[in-house]
């Protein structure tokens, strides 16, 4: 059997698959960020906290109301999305006429408040959330043991990502949305309620983050910092893909998951840095990102 740099191919396939799984979280999260940035021009630093809220709401639904995983997968994004809509109406909408920096500071502050409140209430060690019984166990693929739940994560996130891309790029609703970002006044003149559309878009972006949070709850520790740890990486993914590019966010999300997976095999110590190294290189060579349009 051939070996690549001392790594047997079985191990390599396994690691690539794992990279793809991690990439699915990057993809959904960066997709939400890209939509919000593309349509609202807001750098949504609350995104990590909203992902974390998704996981927490799933836990709360189960613990306080007995709602199982599948219910939470639907309910938690809706609830967190509604919370996002309220935040957008009450706070973020007041900043659209100002510089990006204000939106960034506001959303960053909100993230710290949400994390702080949950940390105060539930501590940092995290809360237990079991894998749903229908998806426990796994398949032996020969080169690795693939837990059923991880396979589900990849499929679910691919479907959600592609559906989102389709809606925004290929449907009439998506066309309105894209037009509204180009010229809100003109689109408004055609009788379309632009502010409401923007609010709902923000709510949808937030719901995507919460969806990723529910997907993550059974495999990562559900704790108030889970989003903060991830959000910086996700921002790097968005920057590499090109700020605001929907397809860029999806492709880079999965792609960087793979690169990170490979780094974990060949030089694990660098696995937390590799994405930022790539970001630096991409910014030097192609400042608008791999899929971004130069303004």
């Amino acid at each position, binding site marked *: 059997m051939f070996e690549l740099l001392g790594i*047997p191919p*079985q*191990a390599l396939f*396994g*690691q690539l698959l*794992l*990279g793809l*799984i*991690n990439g699915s979280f990057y993809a959904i999260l960066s997709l939400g960020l890209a939509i919000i940035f593309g349509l609202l021009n807001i750098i949504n630093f609350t995104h990590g906290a909203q992902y974390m809220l998704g996981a927490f709401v799933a836990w709360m639904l189960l613990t306080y109301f007995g709602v199982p995983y599948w219910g939470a997968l639907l309910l938690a994004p809706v609830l967190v999305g509604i919370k996002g809509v309220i935040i957008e109406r009450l706070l973020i909408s007041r900043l659209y006429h100002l510089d990006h920096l204000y939106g960034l500071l506001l959303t960053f502050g909100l993230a710290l408040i949400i994390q702080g409140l949950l*940390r105060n209430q539930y*501590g*940092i*060690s*995290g*809360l*237990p959330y*079991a*894998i749903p019984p229908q998806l426990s*166990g*796994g398949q032996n693929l020969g080169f*690795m*043991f693939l*837990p059923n*739940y*991880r396979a589900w994560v990849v499929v679910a996130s691919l479907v959600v990502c592609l559906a989102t891309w389709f809606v925004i790029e290929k449907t009439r609703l998506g066309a309105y949305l894209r037009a509204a970002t180009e010229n809100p006044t003109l689109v408004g003149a055609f009788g379309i309620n632009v502010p409401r559309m923007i609010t709902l878009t923000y709510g949808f972006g937030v719901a995507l983050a919460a969806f990723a949070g529910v997907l993550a709850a*059974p*495999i*990562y*520790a559900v*704790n108030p*910092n*889970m989003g903060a*740890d*991830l959000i910086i990486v996700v921002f790097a993914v968005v920057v590499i893909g090109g700020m605001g590019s929907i397809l860029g966010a999806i492709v880079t999300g999965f792609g960087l998951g793979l690169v990170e*997976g490979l780094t*974990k*095999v060949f030089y*694990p*110590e660098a*696995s*937390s*840095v590799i994405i930022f190294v790539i970001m630096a290189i991409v910014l030097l060579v192609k400042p608008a990102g791999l899929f971004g349009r130069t303004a």
Partner: protein
Amino acid sequence: MKNTGFLLASLAASLMATSALAQDISVKIGVLNDRSGIYSDITGEGSVIAAQLAVEDFGTDKGIAVEIVSADHQNKPDVGSNVARQWYDTENVDMIADVPTSSVALAIHEITREKNKVHVNSGAASSDLTGSACSPNTVHWTYDTWALANGTGGAMVAAGGDSWFFVTADYAFGHALERDTTAMVEKSGGTVLGGVRTPFPGQDFSSFLLQAQSSGAKVIGLANAGGDTINSIKQASEFGITQGGQSLAGLLMFVNDVHSLGLDVAQGLVLTESFYWDLNDQTREWSTRFEEKTGNKPSMIQAGVYAGTLHYLKAVEALGSKDDGAAVVAKMKELKTDDPLFGQGEVREDGRKVHDMYLFRVKTPDQSEGPWDYYETVSTIPAAEAFRPLADGGCSLVQ
């Protein structure tokens, strides 16, 4: 109005003066730990409350007034060093307590020596604090990497786990824990097949666990802590590692980690701690007081902050002074330790506090009678065997 205030103040001052003894000392203790990151449940505000309980139990009738301050070192050596220098230089802090995260602890340890103050460490694990880096100004109270390796590592090898693979947090603590466990495994006749250094803190360990799985080692040693350990164990269960015949060794686990994992995932794990709330009447009583203030049972680190602070205050009282840090630590070594949580013990020449350690097994959901009822005692490791022999540490203070 001004006059009334002045009168009240002098009245209060004279009242205090009559109740104080000749040796009126005011001591300032700084609890420095992780108040927002992954170690904030096992240290954090709970450690501050533990220190306050120690002051309460020490009593206010001994002529020693104690003030407690606290700060967050964010698990970063530079942040911790800045706080420590500021405390020692401008805020008259006499003793720094707790300090989890070995990289930060080693920095505080050096600053404390330089300023001739006192550091009573409870939170950090590295056995270097009382080994190659030992200092006349530091007492290391609760546990260390050698004791963990000796407890859990020894037990796993004895149970037939003679080949190991390490998943190690890539900083001072993980390195020390891996080193001490490797030594223990090899001494007991086992072998180490390999290991992987993981970025700290981490989220997804599946890749590293897969490498551990394909190594074929019988035992996967988790040389990490807090959220890293929780994520590792959760994901190992998902990837069917234990079902495949490999065992997990959580080399540093706390009762809070088990609480967070849930017994379904954590059951059967073997771990070493120096304190558990349900050991005896005294630990139960103290833990109830602690829980009333915090809502959680104490971790062994928080228990160590209590006991270490209490012993420090006893030493200051016996010495009648707090000014010479090395002298206070010398007094702490001279006096036998005695507190409700760790029982009787002593602080060795190298600064190591010795007491019994316990090997626990996590109960199954059926065995557990309620929240926080998580451990059954497998064995008690007597104080004399629980810590690294004095001569082996390479500490320059040991003659």
